[in-house]
């Protein structure tokens, strides 16, 4: 009888749950765990993800990005575009209109002067603004009235959604920060630890590098939100402990960035207290083919430079065969589990820029072998290794030291060996490999190996600068201290022409087409870059927390105002 009553009660609660949500603070307390603790709540003074994300609960910009990478309006009435006249036809001006009646959490009105002040604050040369890039290329910010902000750029800006868009460039209150310009910025402890904002929550107590206690902002623009009256954002621990706190012990409702190995993911998910949510951005683990000869027999300064094309990998058939021999799904299962998916694209997202290329997903050992035969690489002496003109098909494969990468190396070496390719593996400490020291022979830029593996992504939603890395004049070499970004030493005049075209194109559909074409030129048409795994973000959320949508384009707490308690 008791059980039945309880069940009826539960049914009644869930039936009326939707009504209950529509009231601010009705759902009580929510606990969030960031295993890297926030140390400041002003994103302009820290580039740390943890700080930017924690601040995004309090501070907001004109707009933000949704989980698809599209711009959405926050403080603005709508997103300005060329079509609605918000962006000028020559792409040099963008006009944001604030929603009417917006209030700061202290009850004072939000005006365009606050936005203009934010720009002043960040561009101050002595301030050391961490998000200066978001305000790059701005000539002036004008405020014709209290609700209108006009940003004028120095030149045409095909992607004007930089300043005041996303968690990294929110609007701060002029009245609060007026005395914190320039060198004074970092001394304004009270302001930096307890900013007045427009977001769904406001700070009640901030313990640096430990805990942020928050409560619902009484002046939040939607009177029904947020559903939670208070939030505790706790820091500390590591990814595994954080995942456990949500998935196994249930002490927390949400844990950020819980990258753990797939076995552990399965094991924790079985505890039944929560689920892992994933979101995919642009981080792609890939194998880069060296188009130049890294042989140690060459003189220093000529090794891995365009003077000597690669004796084996210059042949596209070999590169294609190496790509075909890889089973990407297995790599995902071994290394990332739900936090990864196989990909053939260098630009896997956002949707409008991602090519539909999936040709590499299925492994084809027979086809790969046939391609190598065709290219003249056969096992003529019967030692299991293919050769051609007395030269063995032998490759040096390097990457950074990281357990997942070493597993990938072992697997890929296995497949390539079966194909008749001899592989020597090498792993290098990450601080050296990615260190960029021109004196070290082991950096990924120097590329003293035949193939190498690492992951890279691009900032924001626009892939133009990322794709422009593969220009002929960005090839690293001794003359530029090995600082170029064109790691493969890929060089194609047709590609360079496309990059130039993209820099002059504003139409978003056309930009998408160009990006796809360039992506295909680097991947499926030439196999210079061999993408393996699209690596996503992985966070853990409790079954009792609703409304969580993982977003890789903005902060993970981007929609905390919509979170609610599942009853």
């Amino acid at each position: 009888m008791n059980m039945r009553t309880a069940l009826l009660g539960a049914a009644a609660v869930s039936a009326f749950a939707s009504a209950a949500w529509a009231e601010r603070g009705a759902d009580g307390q929510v606990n969030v765990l960031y295993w890297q603790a926030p140390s400041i709540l002003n994103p302009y003074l820290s580039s740390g993800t943890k700080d930017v994300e924690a601040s995004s609960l309090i501070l907001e910009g004109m707009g933000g990005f949704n989980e698809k990478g599209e711009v959405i309006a926050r403080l603005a009435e709508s997103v300005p575009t060329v079509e609605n006249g918000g962006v000028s036809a020559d792409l040099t001006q963008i006009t944001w209109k604030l929603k009417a009646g917006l209030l700061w959490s202290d009850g004072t009105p939000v005006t365009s002067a606050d936005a203009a002040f934010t720009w002043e604050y960040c561009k101050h040369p002595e301030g050391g603004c961490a998000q200066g890039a978001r305000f790059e290329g701005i000539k002036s910010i004008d405020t014709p009235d209290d609700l209108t902000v006009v940003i004028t750029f120095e030149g045409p800006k095909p992607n004007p959604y930089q300043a005041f868009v996303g968690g990294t460039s929110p609007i701060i209150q002029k009245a609060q920060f007026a005395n914190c310009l320039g060198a004074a910025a970092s001394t304004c402890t009270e302001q930096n630890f307890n900013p007045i904002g427009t977001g769904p929550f406001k700070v009640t107590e901030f313990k640096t590098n430990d805990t942020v206690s928050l409560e619902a902002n009484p002046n939040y623009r939607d009177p029904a939100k947020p559903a939670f009256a208070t939030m505790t954002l706790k820091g500390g621990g590591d990814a595994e402990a954080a995942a456990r706190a949500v998935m196994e012990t249930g002490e927390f409702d949400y844990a950020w960035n819980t990258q753990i190995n797939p076995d552990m993911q399965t094991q924790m998910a079985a505890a039944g207290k929560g689920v892992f949510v994933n979101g995919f951005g642009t981080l792609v683990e890939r194998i880069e083919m060296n188009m130049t000869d890294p042989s140690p027999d060459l003189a220093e300064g000529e090794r891995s430079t365009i003077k000597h094309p690669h004796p084996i990998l210059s042949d596209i058939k070999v590169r294609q065969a190496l790509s075909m021999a890889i089973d990407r799904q297995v790599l995902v299962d071994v290394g990332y589990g739900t936090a990864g998916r196989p990909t053939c694209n260098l630009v896997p997202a956002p949707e409008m820029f991602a090519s539909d290329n999936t040709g590499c997903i299925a492994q084809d050992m027979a086809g790969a072998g046939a391609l190598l035969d065709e290219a003249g690489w056969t096992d003529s002496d019967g030692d299991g290794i293919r050769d051609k003109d007395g030269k063995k098909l032998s490759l040096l494969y390097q990457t950074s030291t990281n357990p997942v990468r070493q597993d990938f190396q072992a697997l890929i070496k296995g497949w390539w060996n079966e194909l008749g390719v001899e592989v020597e593996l090498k792993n290098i400490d990450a601080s050296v490999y990615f260190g960029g020291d021109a004196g070290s022979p082991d950096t990924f830029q120097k590329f003293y190996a035949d193939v190498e593996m690492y992951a890279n992504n691009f900032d924001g939603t626009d892939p133009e600068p990322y794709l422009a890395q593969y220009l002929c004049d960005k090839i690293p070499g001794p003359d530029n201290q090995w600082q170029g970004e064109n790691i493969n030493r890929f060089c194609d005049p047709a590609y360079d022409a496309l990059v130039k075209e993209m820099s002059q194109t504003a139409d978003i559909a056309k930009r998408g087409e160009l990006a796809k074409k360039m992506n295909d030129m680097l991947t499926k048409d030439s196999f210079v870059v061999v993408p393996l795994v699209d690596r996503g973000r992985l966070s853990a959320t409790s079954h009792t927390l609703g409304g969580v949508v993982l977003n890789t384009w903005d902060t993970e707490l981007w929609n905390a105002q919509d979170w609610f308690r599942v009853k």
Partner: protein
Amino acid sequence: MSDPLAAPTIEKPRNQWRDVWDQFTTHKGALVGMTVLGVLLAFVLLGPFLWHEETLTTTEKIMLKNKPPSARFPMGTDQLGRDFLKRMMQGGQVSIAVGLVAMMISIFLGTTVGVLAGFFRRLDGPLMRLTDLFLSLPLLPLLLVMVMLFRDALAGVLGPEFGTFMLIVTAIGITSWMQSARVVRGEVLALKEREFVLAARSIGTPPRRVILRHVLPNVISPVMVAATLNIAEAIITESALSFLGLGFPPDFPTWGRLLYDGVSYMQQYPERVMLPGLAISLTVLSVNYIGDGLRDALDPRIRGR
């Protein structure tokens, strides 16, 4: 029947090494240690001849990942489906070889420096300052520089694997002799003033003979202790180097690397940490006990009691 002319049977003079062996066998720990080390050596050296791994393709292997111990895989398989028994054997060969060779290099250097510094007054200052110098050097960066400078050159001459092996044992050997040098020097300084050494010198025994005949046998015990500790250190340093990407190639198993790899799976598959850890500990312990037994056996003051 017996020949009356036969000389009365004189007991044959006992060989000194036989005495040493007899003394050694009275040390139970040493015998156990020797048995365990013998078993470990047989495991890594003979094992690969007795245990043939199935030849599977990479894709077939991955289907068999994380299998518990069974008749097919007596120690289970790892996260990539590789036979863990096979990897333990391969890893053991490298680790034991690295440990023993590096230990020998380090003991040789340490004892030489210690004896020379303790015995010859003139050499004492310079040699001990050299020891201090080495002690004050940060080890890991020094190793990194050495590996970086000589790896490619050695690999070119000796081949990538043997070249790396030589480089690693030399690098570990010449960076871990200092403690034993100091201990030995102290012992030698004390021994030098003892009556039997003075007596030997007073009858004109040259220093070389004094050292070999009277000093060295008496410093054997601290050297043995230092040696056994060095083996453990060498095995662990090797794994640290491999972990930093400066040791053996990543697909080349050693016990230290298996241990490191196992740490991230410690909770689900504790045997992946325990097996290599146990192997390292057993090697170190058994060598330690053998050293203990040898020290007792070689010490004429204890022998025969």
